C-alpha cells in the first residue's frame, strides 16, 4: 500500500542495484581535454610538445587542489585559458623511457601524517579539500550519489584492496577522531578496520546532509564532515598504483543499459559513449554527473574530470519537454516531496520575479539541491535551476555588501553598480 502512495515510484530511485561487477577499463582516448582553469602551467609546457602518462603539466595555487598530469602519450595540440588539449601519439623509445622513469611513491610506507600529507597528495593529483577537512567525525558517503549511478556497490564490494588502502590513507590524513562508513542498509559489509553505519538508500538519501542526518540523527550538526566514496577510491587508487591520479570511475548509461568504467581524466564524452556502445540521436540530452543533479552538455567534445560521477544520455521523448517558461500551477507536488521541508513552489516563483530577498526569508539557503522538486513538477518548471539562481544572486549580493562595508563611503555605490552591470 505504501508504494501506491509513493510519489517516486521509479525503481531506479532505490540506490542499491545489485551490481557488483568490477569496473571495466575505459577506452584509450584519442584525445583528451584537461581542465586548466586556475592552474599554472609548468615551465616549458607548451603547444606541440610531446608528453607521456603521469607527466606533470601544471600546478594549482591552492594547496588542497591536486596538480594536473597528462593521462596519455600524446602531443599538446592547444592550450587556452580553460583547457589543455592532448592528442594521442604512438610513443617513441625516448618517450617510453620517460614514462618508465616516473617515480612510484609508496604512500603506505611513508611516515607522514595529517597536514604533512597534503602537499604529497597534491603532488599526486589528489584534491584533499573534503578528505582532509577539519572535523570531529568524518562520514564517508558510501551511497550511489544519484539514481542511475551504480559504481558505489562495486567500490564497496569488489574493489576491496583499493577501498582498504583508501581508508588507511584517509585515517592518516584526516584529523577526525572518528571515521564512519555509511552504506545502504541492504548491504551486509564486514570491515574490521572501519565503523560501518547502515543508512536508508532511497534517493534523496544519498544527499550529503541527509546521510549526516541518518548517521547522527541531527540536522546540520557541528563538527561532522562528509566525504564521498569516490574520493576515498581515488586516494586508494593512488596508494595502490603509487602513481599520480589520472583516471576516474564513472557510470556511463542510457535508459536501457549502463556500465561502470575506469576512464582517463579528460576523456571526451563522445568517445566514451561510443566505447560503451550507447547510441544517441538528435534531440537527446547529454548529462555529465548524475541524472538528477548533473549538468547538460552541449557538445560531445566536452570531457570528464576527476570529480565526474557519470555520463548519461537521456533520450528525447523519454521525459516531457521542459519549455522553461511554464507558470507554476500550485499543484503542491514539490512541497510534498522536498526533503528539506521547503516550499519550492514559492521559491521558484520568487526567483522567477527576482524577489531574492523574499526567497531568503523562505529559507532558500537550506535547499539541499536534490532536484526532486523538478522531478515531480507536472508543469515541467526548472525549479532547481530557479533555486540555484536565487542562491547565486543572494551570495553575490552578500559579497557586494561585504565589499561595501570595507570600502570608504562613496565608493560603495560604484561597486554595487558594477555588480548589477555584471548580472
Amino acid at each position, binding site marked *: 500500500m505504501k508504494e501506491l502512495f509513493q510519489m517516486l515510484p521509479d525503481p531506479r530511485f532505490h540506490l542499491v542495484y545489485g551490481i557488483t561487477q568490477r569496473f571495466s577499463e575505459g577506452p584509450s582516448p584519442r584525445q583528451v581535454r584537461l581542465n586548466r582553469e586556475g592552474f599554472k602551467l609548468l615551465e616549458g609546457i607548451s603547444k606541440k610538445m610531446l608528453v607521456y602518462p603521469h607527466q606533470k603539466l601544471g600546478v594549482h595555487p591552492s594547496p588542497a587542489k591536486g596538480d594536473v598530469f597528462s593521462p596519455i602519450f600524446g602531443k599538446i595540440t592547444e592550450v587556452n585559458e580553460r583547457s589543455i588539449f592532448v592528442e594521442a601519439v604512438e610513443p617513441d623509445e625516448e618517450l617510453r623511457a620517460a614514462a618508465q622513469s616516473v617515480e612510484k611513491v609508496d604512500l603506505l610506507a611513508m611516515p607522514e601524517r595529517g597536514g604533512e600529507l597534503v602537499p604529497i597528495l597534491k603532488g599526486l593529483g589528489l584534491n584533499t579539500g573534503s578528505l582532509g577537512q577539519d572535523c570531529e567525525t568524518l562520514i564517508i558517503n558510501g551511497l550511489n550519489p544519484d539514481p542511475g549511478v551504480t559504481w558505489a556497490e562495486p567500490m564497496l564490494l569488489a574493489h576491496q584492496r583499493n577501498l582498504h588502502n583508501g581508508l588507511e590513507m584517509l585515517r592518516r590524513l584526516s584529523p577526525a577522531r572518528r571515521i564512519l562508513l555509511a552504506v545502504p542498509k541492504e548491504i551486509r559489509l564486514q570491515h574490521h578496520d572501519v565503523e560501518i553505519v547502515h543508512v536508508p538508500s532511497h534517493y534523496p538519501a544519498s544527499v550529503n546532509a541527509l546521510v549526516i542526518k541518518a548517521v547522527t540523527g541531527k540536522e546540520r550538526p557541528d563538527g561532522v564532515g562528509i566525504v564521498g566514496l569516490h574520493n576515498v577510491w581515488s586516494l586508494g587508487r593512488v596508494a595502490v598504483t603509487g602513481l599520480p591520479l589520472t583516471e576516474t570511475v564513472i557510470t556511463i548509461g542510457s535508459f536501457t543499459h549502463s556500465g561502470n568504467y575506469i576512464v582517463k581524466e579528460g576523456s571526451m564524452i563522445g568517445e566514451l559513449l561510443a566505447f560503451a556502445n550507447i547510441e544517441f540521436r538528435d534531440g537527446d540530452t547529454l548529462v555529465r554527473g548524475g541524472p538528477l543533479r548533473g549538468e547538460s552538455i552541449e557538445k560531445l567534445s566536452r570531457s570528464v574530470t576527476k570529480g565526474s560521477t557519470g555520463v548519461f544520455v537521456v533520450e528525447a521523448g523519454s521525459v516531457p519537454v521542459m519549455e522553461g517558461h511554464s507558470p507554476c500551477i500550485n*499543484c*503542491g507536488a514539490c512541497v510534498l516531496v522536498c526533503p*528539506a521541508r521547503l516550499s519550492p513552489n514559492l521559491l521558484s516563483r520568487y526567483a522567477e520575479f527576482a524577489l531574492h530577498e523574499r526567497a531568503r526569508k523562505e529559507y532558500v539557503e537550506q535547499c539541499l539541491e536534490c532536484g526532486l522538486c523538478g522531478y515531480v513538477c507536472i508543469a*515541467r518548471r526548472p525549479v532547481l535551476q530557479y533555486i540555484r539562481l536565487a542562491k547565486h544572486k543572494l551570495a553575490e549580493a552578500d559579497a557586494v555588501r561585504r565589499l561595501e562595508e570595507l570600502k570608504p563611503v562613496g565608493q560603495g555605490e560604484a561597486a554595487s553598480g558594477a555588480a548589477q552591470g555584471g548580472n
Partner: protein
Amino acid sequence: MTSASSSVLLAMSAPPYWHCGRSIRRQSLYILAALLPAVCFAVWNWGLPAVRVMALSVAVCVAVEALCQKLMGRELAVDDLTAVCSGLLLAFLLPADSPWWLVVLGAVTSITLGKMAFGGLGANPVNTVLVGWAVLFVSFPLHMDANAASLGTTFVDPLVRLKFFGAEQAAHIPLTDLLLGRQINGLGAGQIGALFVGGSLLCMRGILRWHSALGFFLGVAGIAAIFHASDPMLHASPLYHLCTGSVMLAGFFLITDPANAPSRPLPMFLYGLIGGGLVMAIRKYGVYTDGTPFAILLVNMLTPLLDMIRPKPFGVR
C-alpha cells in the same frame, strides 16, 4: 561513429534530467478517466438531457478558455484538458434538465471569474467550478434546485426528504438507490458509487491527495455520527450523508484541487476535516439542503491560514 555523430544536435536542459513523467495533460486525462464511470451512470439514469448538459458545459469551458488566452495574448493551452475537467465537473453539479443558457452562463463564469481572472490555471484562490456554480445558485435558485427542475422523474431528492420529512422517512430510501445514482441531485454528483470507485483509484495512484479527501469524509461522517448518536430519529446516519448531495463528488474532485488547498499533509487533512464539518453545519443549521459547495468555497479561504502550519526547514533551529 564519432565523426558522424559530432554533428548531432543535443538538447540542452536543466536538472533534473529525469522526470516522473506526469504532465498537466496526463493528470487531466487521469481525472477524466476517473469521472468516466460517473458519466456513464449519469447517462443511464438521466438519459440524453444529461449528455446535452455535459457536452455543452465542456464545449463552452474549452471555448471560453481559448478565447481568454487569445485575448490575454497567451499561448493557447487548452490542450492540457483542464478546461474539459472543469466543464465536466460543473455539469455534474447541475440538474440534468438545466436550460441551455444556465449551462452556458455557469461555464462562462467558471472559466472567466474562477480561473482566467486570477491569471490562469492554479492561480485561483477558490475552486474554479464552484465560482460558476455559486453565481448560478445565487442568481437562479429555482433553476438550480434539482428537485424543482427534475419534474419528469420517479426519483426522490434524499436531502429534501431528510430536511422536510425527517430521518425516519429518509431511511426508507434504499442504499442501493443512492449508490447507483437513483436520486435527485446534480446529474453527476448523485452517481455516488461510480464517483467513489473513480475517486479512490485516483487517490491510490497518487493523482489526488488522499489527505484532504479522507479528512473531508471523516469530517462529514464524524459530525453526522455525533448527531445521529444523539438522536437517531431526527438525524440521518453518517452513510446517508456521505451518499447524498455532492459530498462524494466534492470530497474526491473539488476539495482536492491542489491550487486552492494547503500543500502539506497535516494542513491538508485539517482542511478536509473542517470542510466536512462545515458541510454538516450547513446541512443542519443552514437554509440549504446540501451546502457542500458553499462549505468548500469557505474552506478554500482558510488555505493561507492552514498553510502557516509548517515544519521548520531542514537544519533551521
